[in-house]
């Protein structure tokens, strides 16, 4: 028999006992459906994270802080170091984490590490409010991690970091609250920012909105350019004695944008040796990816278990068809069909059943997934712009097909080789 004839005959045979085939296909369908959905979930979330990393960019920037000496929960506190910094609350790590405050001397140490071109303190600014044209005052939080970051802009052109103009980029969520008609309408407008200084006097600083940014995974605050950050910081410190040392929770270290992964690792190692911890944006977001991958792996594991169970269904189905078709097999052998082709006939039937199951499974998963994904994107997940929670990648769907058909083939080997070995005469005498 030619390969095409084997395929045609196998497909025909699988439709001969419709109920049995349907039930087997159903079992495979469940596995394939689950696997397609879990893969899509993984792809969707990871895609989002990846676009976040690339849209936030900052490939040449890392955040550096000075970790407190690690003590196990059962140990007492670490001994005090003369001249060591005090602890500061931080937005790094879990809530309540503290870091040792850094001083200008620390910045100099960081800047001196090979590979690092410059180190700047990340200065924490705490403005009171933002207001546009008497539409009311609203709390304003400024994203600390702004140096070097590429903003994912929904409107506007972003900062001009070189000039002295005071500029701000607002998150999309602020736009309607502040009274703007649209993202585009906000661009170019001037907003007032209120800041209270050390002795309780409130200052007003005017800044131009140069863009509207999509909320990101690492914060939904507004971003300010260097000039505005400095202006707010200075206003904040008005009235403090000049001798008060400046302390920073963290610093931004710049390195060569073309640095390879191993060079970045070397820089981090040097930082660790000097008592600091450095992490890039990719590191911070990458942690999410690891967690997501882990969860998807477990979910995929369940789907594969379902598929293996379905594999036993295939074995059962095929053993029954081999039994039923004993005479037909004998006849075909008597007519000169080789054992290998008999084997191919039955394994093709199994692979076809696998194909049907995965086609229906993947098809339904895509249909249901697209629906659910859109509903979620507009409802529950609307805060995460650009997150298509279920993303169906052709490669992962192809993998599902290959996996299911591979399992089906494996399942067919026992019944198919049994059929292939049958002696024609025993089959023909079979009552």
């Amino acid at each position, binding site marked *: *028999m*030619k390969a095409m*004839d084997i395929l045609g*005959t196998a497909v*025909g045979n699988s439709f*001969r006992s419709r109920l049995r085939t349907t039930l087997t296909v159903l079992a495979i369908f469940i596995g394939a459906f689950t696997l397609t959905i879990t893969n899509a979930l993984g792809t969707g979330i990871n895609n989002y994270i990846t676009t976040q990393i690339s849209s936030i960019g900052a490939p040449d920037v890392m955040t550096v802080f000075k970790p407190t000496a690690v003590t196990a929960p059962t140990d007492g506190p670490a001994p005090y170091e003369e001249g060591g910094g005090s602890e500061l609350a931080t937005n790094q790590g879990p809530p309540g984490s503290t870091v040792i405050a850094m001083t200008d001397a620390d910045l100099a140490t960081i800047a001196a590490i090979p590979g690092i071109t410059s180190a700047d303190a990340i200065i924490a600014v705490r403005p009171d409010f933002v207001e546009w044209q008497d539409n009311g005052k609203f709390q304003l939080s400024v994203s600390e991690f702004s140096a070097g970051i590429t903003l994912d802009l929904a409107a506007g052109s972003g900062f001009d970091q070189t000039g002295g103009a005071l500029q701000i980029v607002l998150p999309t969520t602020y736009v309607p609250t502040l009274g703007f008609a649209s993202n585009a309408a906000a661009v170019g407008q001037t907003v007032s920012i209120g800041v209270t200084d050390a002795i309780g006097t409130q200052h007003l600083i005017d800044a131009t909105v140069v863009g509207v940014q999509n909320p990101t995974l690492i914060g939904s605050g507004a971003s300010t350019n260097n000039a505005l950050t400095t202006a707010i910081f200075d206003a904040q410190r008005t009235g403090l004695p000049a001798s008060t040392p400046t302390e920073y929770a963290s610093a931004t270290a710049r390195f060569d944008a073309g640095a390879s992964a191993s060079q970045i690792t070397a820089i981090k190692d040097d930082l660790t040796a000097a008592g600091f911890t450095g992490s890039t944006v990719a590191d911070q977001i990458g942690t999410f990816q690891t967690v997501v991958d882990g969860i998807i792996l477990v979910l995929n594991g369940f789907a594969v278990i379902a598929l293996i169970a379905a594999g036993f269904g295939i074995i059962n189905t095929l053993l029954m068809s081999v039994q039923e078709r004993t*005479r*037909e097999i*004998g*006849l*075909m*052998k*008597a*007519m*000169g*069909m*080789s054992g290998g*082709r008999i084997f191919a006939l039955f394994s093709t039937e199994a692979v076809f059943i696998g194909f049907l199951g995965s086609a229906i499974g993947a098809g339904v998963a895509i249909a249901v997934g697209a629906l659910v994904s859109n509903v979620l994107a507009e409802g529950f997940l609307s805060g995460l712009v650009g997150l298509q929670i279920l993303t169906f990648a052709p490669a992962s769907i192809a993998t599902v097909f290959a996996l299911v058909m591979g399992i089906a083939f494996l399942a067919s080997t026992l019944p198919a080789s049994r059929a292939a070995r049958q*002696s*024609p*005469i025993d089959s*023909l005498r079979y009552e």
Partner: protein
Amino acid sequence: MTATVLSTRNLTKHYGSGDTRFDALKGIDLDILEGESVAIVGKSGSGKSTLMHILALLDAPSSGELVVDGHSAATLKGKALNSLRNRTFGFVFQQFFLNANASVLENVMLPLKIARMGSRERKRVAMATLELLELGDKAGNKALNLSGGQKQRVVIARAIVNSPRIIFADEPTGNLDSATGRIVEDLLFDLNRERGITLVIVTHDEDLAARADRRIYLHDGLLVAAIDEPAATAGRHA
């Protein structure tokens, strides 16, 4: 000159072993010539089917020699065996062994499909064969819906569709009423006469056996008397 297409020497076949051992064939010497029709006659259980299966290479003898068309059966394996089965033999069994849910045409095309003939060509050849057996109008029917006589004609069509040199028929009329059986017999002997296809018919029906060139009588696994019809075989054993 007529060649010997099937030849056996001291052929035996036993089933089981020890206490359950049963000797179905106890030493058969036989020569079947190209183009003749031979009836293997005997009571039920005498070993006729066993002998036919061995001659048709469907089963292996326990001992003895079998030469098919010049090839020693013991050395025939794999591809050579399969292509000999496919191109040299046609089978008509007492049970029809038709695929009930497939069409008549599909059933008849099966040997051609196995022989890897292209789909258009095999349809043409199978249709021509069905026409020959006056079954052309039944080509699209399911085998299931045919009468016994029609089914056996489909089986004959399937047996001759790839122009075999030998047809083996095991009780071909056993399941048919005598009138239908007669038609099927006529068909088989016509094929033997007109196309020179060697015909080996297994039967316990004396009337059917009488139409063959030669009868071989089997009794408990032994040839008892091979009565040659003088006219038909006069020159052959010279």
